[in-house]
């Protein structure tokens, strides 16, 4: 360059440095118009108690807000389910509320696709449809028992042709049916892991998915190291070494669908021990005799070959089950995901009943520190909020799909669930949905289901809206979670249930309240008299504020009575439940069992558009931003593939391709694929990433409960073209070969 331009350049550089050093930046400081009258510290922030709605566990959380922005979510220390802790998805919710792709206007499907319309027009459109529908409509949510479902139920519940449906986590209704085996009403089983000395997890990935990973995580910590002189022991039986199995002391790779058989075999040995040691139990002796008779077929010697383990192992599970009482058995997706799920659950609950009885005999009675149970109150709250056990689950989804096909519904409301994405191909939800004249999707983001709807309503994020929630998780224990807005709506959304109320009022239907907030207050008032432990002397308004400060109502912890022995008649007839039907598989001619599983970050797919969750390494594979298939190294060798090679996995319903992650912790005849990937319409981060394993699944159901048998699919696996770089955060096997872990 020449002298002139060189000087020019250095002149510019010099002046740039002057400007850069300038701190006469004029920023504005904007003061309040009216100061908050509680003298709260504006920068430390205000903490509000609310309820996390990322899944249906109903964990109480507290949220730090600074200057009206949500900054951090933590567990609510006094809440009985979260117990002061929060999971990864709950922590990531502060990114979701400020996500650039949040829906901001109602959209009505016209000839050329979606057009934005105003809120008033949206209310008009819906109200007109309400009038035309005359009660022939369905309400589909994710299984939550909350204000939205309560409002819809109160408006339409008694009308002919109305259907309430919950698209719950797979296996939910089987768990409920299994829990009902020995109780007098349907309930989720609630084994007391906190105080157990020995636990057998039957395919229960409870620390990663399912009813409440936060609660079970806390229980696990207590069980393992919460007591000075006892280290709880856990055994995991299932096809895949999940992160839950990783923290257990032993992993037993039982063939898919055979966990019920294992439970019965363990039970056989336990009953044998009870009889041979002449343990004095409250159980009538002839009941024991009957069971022993029936269980003879499940003697370890007879079934060990089917279970692919030495018979001795089964004895080694049964003996601590007796000797290290209190012991618990917990069933999960590897049990409920098969057609023989309920039968297997009956066996698992049988083991739990035996455990309680043995514990009683040895004076090691379960001292369960749980909030006071009140089955009646719980049932009434559930009914008041609309979506009860019967309305939840796959069986009901099938009923809905049949109804949609037959034209039974003139309209439908789908709230915060994505069945077009997360239900199996065999259900054919999308086709059925297209036959309904008018569907309203209440959602935060455009997703596959909202894309199919006629009208999309952008709802408040759970940090911005009102609700009440009755978690399914703790059976017989009423917990009334309150969800309050911790920040003002960030974008121009309205509460979905407020819109429904407005539309119903415009259609001259009887509405329970003028707004969701009023509805929530009404529910609190309705049950107030039965809320033990809450201050009776406060006026209604003050009482509501009091509950909001805590995050809801649950009765105080007490030392519970031991679980009662089931009545003789139930025990007597239990003999008929002790069976292990063979599992059945869709695509039985194919060589591999497909093991779809929920990861801690993606959930059923909602987490896929969140950058934090995508970048967080998966616990087992440590993969980030990526989809994969796990297979045993021996299987990979047989197929001639190495890490990163693409394989095609196919069934009669569809096929997907995925990069291989060889993993020793999986049976050689099983391939595991995470769910929640393969979105086709869920934002920039999620769309086109991976493939949707649900497209491979047929519609097999549990014989008893109708739950979706989502682990009952067999598939073909073939090498395909291409490779992918595996975005691992770790060496495939870890650098340190276990030295730090030995005692």
């Amino acid at each position: 360059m020449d002298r002139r331009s060189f000087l020019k350049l250095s002149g510019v550089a010099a002046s740039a440095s002057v400007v850069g050093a300038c701190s006469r930046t004029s920023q504005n400081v904007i003061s309040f118009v009216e100061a908050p009258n509680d003298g709260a510290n504006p920068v430390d922030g205000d903490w509000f108690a609310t309820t996390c709605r990322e899944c249906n566990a109903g964990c109480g959380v507290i949220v730090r807000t600074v200057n009206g922005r949500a900054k951090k979510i933590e567990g609510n220390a006094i809440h009985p389910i979260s117990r002061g802790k929060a999971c990864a998805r709950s922590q990531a919710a502060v990114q979701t509320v400020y996500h650039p792709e949040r829906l901001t206007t109602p959209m009505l499907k016209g000839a050329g696709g979606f057009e934005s319309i105003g809120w008033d027009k949206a209310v008009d459109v819906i109200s007109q449809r309400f009038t035309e529908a005359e009660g022939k409509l369905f309400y589909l949510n994710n299984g939550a028992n909350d204000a939205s479902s309560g409002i819809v139920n109160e408006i339409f519940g008694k009308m002919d042709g109305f259907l309430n449906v919950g698209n719950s986590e797979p296996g939910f209704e089987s768990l409920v049916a299994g829990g009902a085996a020995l109780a007098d009403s349907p309930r989720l089983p609630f084994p007391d892991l906190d105080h157990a000395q020995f636990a057998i997890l039957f395919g229960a990935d409870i620390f990663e998915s399912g009813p409440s990973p936060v609660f079970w995580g806390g229980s696990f910590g207590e069980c393992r190291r919460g007591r000075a002189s006892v280290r709880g022991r856990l055994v995991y039986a299932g096809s895949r070494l999940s992160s839950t199995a990783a923290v257990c002391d032993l992993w037993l790779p039982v063939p898919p669908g055979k966990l019920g058989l294992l439970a019965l075999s363990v039970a056989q040995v336990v009953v044998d021990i009870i009889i041979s040691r002449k343990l004095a139990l409250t159980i009538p002796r002839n009941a024991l005799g009957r069971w022993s008779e029936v269980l003879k077929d499940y003697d370890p010697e007879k079934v060990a070959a089917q279970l692919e383990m030495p018979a001795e192992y089964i004895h080694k599970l049964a003996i601590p089950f007796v000797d290290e009482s209190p012991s618990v058995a917990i069933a999960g997706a590897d049990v409920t995901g098969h057609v023989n799920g309920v039968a297997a659950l009956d066996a698992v609950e049988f083991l739990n009943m035996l455990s309680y009885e043995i514990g009683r005999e040895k004076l090691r009675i379960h001292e369960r520190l749980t909030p006071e149970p009140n089955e009646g109150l719980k049932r009434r709250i559930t009914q008041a909020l609309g979506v009860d056990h019967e309305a939840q689950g796959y069986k009901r989804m099938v009923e809905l799909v049949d109804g949609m096909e037959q034209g039974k519904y003139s309209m439908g409301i789908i709230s915060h669930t994505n069945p077009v994405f997360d239900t199996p191909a065999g259900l054919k939800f999308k086709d059925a949905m297209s036959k309904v004249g008018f569907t309203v999707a209440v959602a935060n983001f455009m997703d596959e289901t909202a894309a199919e709807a006629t009208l999309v309503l952008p709802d408040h994020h759970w940090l911005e809206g009102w609700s009440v929630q009755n978690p399914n998780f703790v059976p017989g224990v009423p917990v009334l979670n309150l969800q309050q807005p911790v920040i003002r709506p960030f974008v121009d959304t309205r509460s979905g249930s407020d819109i429904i109320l407005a539309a119903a009022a415009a259609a001259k239907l009887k509405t329970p309240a003028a707004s969701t907030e009023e509805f929530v207050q009404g529910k609190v008032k309705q049950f107030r008299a039965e809320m033990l432990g809450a201050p009776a002397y406060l006026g209604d308004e003050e009482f509501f504020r009091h509950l909001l400060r805590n995050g809801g109502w649950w009765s105080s912890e007490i030392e519970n009575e031991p679980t009662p022995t089931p009545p003789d008649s139930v025990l007597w007839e239990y003999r008929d439940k002790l069976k292990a039907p063979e599992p059945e598989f869709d695509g039985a001619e194919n060589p591999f069992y497909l093991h779809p599983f929920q990861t801690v970050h993606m959930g059923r797919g909602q987490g896929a558009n969140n950058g934090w969750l995508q970048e967080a390494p998966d616990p087992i594979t440590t993969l980030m931003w990526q989809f994969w298939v796990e297979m045993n190294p021996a299987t990979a060798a047989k197929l001639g593939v190495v890490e990163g090679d693409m394989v095609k996995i196919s069934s009669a319903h569809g096929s997907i391709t995925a990069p291989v992650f060889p993993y020793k912790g999986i049976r050689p005849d099983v391939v595991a694929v995470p769910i929640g990937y393969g979105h086709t319409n869920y934002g920039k981060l999620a769309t086109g990433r991976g493939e949707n394993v649900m497209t491979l699944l047929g519609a097999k159901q549990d014989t008893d409960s109708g739950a979706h048998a989502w682990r009952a699919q067999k598939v073909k696996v073939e090498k395909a073209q291409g490779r992918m770089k595996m975005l691992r955060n770790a060496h495939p096997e870890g650098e340190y070969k276990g030295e730090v872990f030995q005692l």
Partner: protein
Amino acid sequence: MKSFNYKKHNDYSWSMIIDLDRCNGCGACVIGCQAENNVATVGEEEVGKKRNMHWLRIERYIEGEYPHVKVRFLPMMCQHCAQAPCESVCPVYATYHNPEGLNVQVYNRCIGTRFCGNNCPYSVRYFNWFDSSFPEPVNNQLNPDVSVRERGVMEKCSLCMQRIRRGKDTAKDEGREVQDGDIQPACAQTCPTGAITFGNINDHESKVYKMAHSGRAISLFEEKGTHPAVKYLKGGTNDVIG
């Protein structure tokens, strides 16, 4: 245990104990830390170059052959070593050991030589290769107590210094010392199993003191002589089948 190269007595000596027998790899701590400390996400391409910035990572070890496989988890973050290999190599003294036992990283002094990251045996230092992008509206979530680092600066776990500072502030307001359990870094507060415990190891009544003196406490890479303030409690396996 006080760091041995400090002569004057200090009230606080912060320590963190991680119980390896409780960690189930759920990753709540990773995201909790990210939310609390304005840690950036780098995206797919940069992750492929191993440039993800998680201050806290869960290492996963697989041992054995099928079917006798064991998988273990180890949460790893800055160990706040008393004899930190990173501190002695910074040409501008951007990292040093403070009297309370923390390894301090001063963002505005750092000139980005990356020598410290090179020296760290635990690989827990992360470099900002680019300006972290917190575009609107995601920047509404940023924690006002923590700087947003710009490119060219090293960062790492600070044991949530902003929370320690706030805890001491509150204690001073009330005219008392910090009690055990008052201060919880983000990871410790959110861990569902209670695997992470934080406290003042100079307080002989504190949980961390008792845990550090139980038979299970170990330091990682003890043979390198780093004397970390973060200790791990060894896990165990109770043989079931013998």
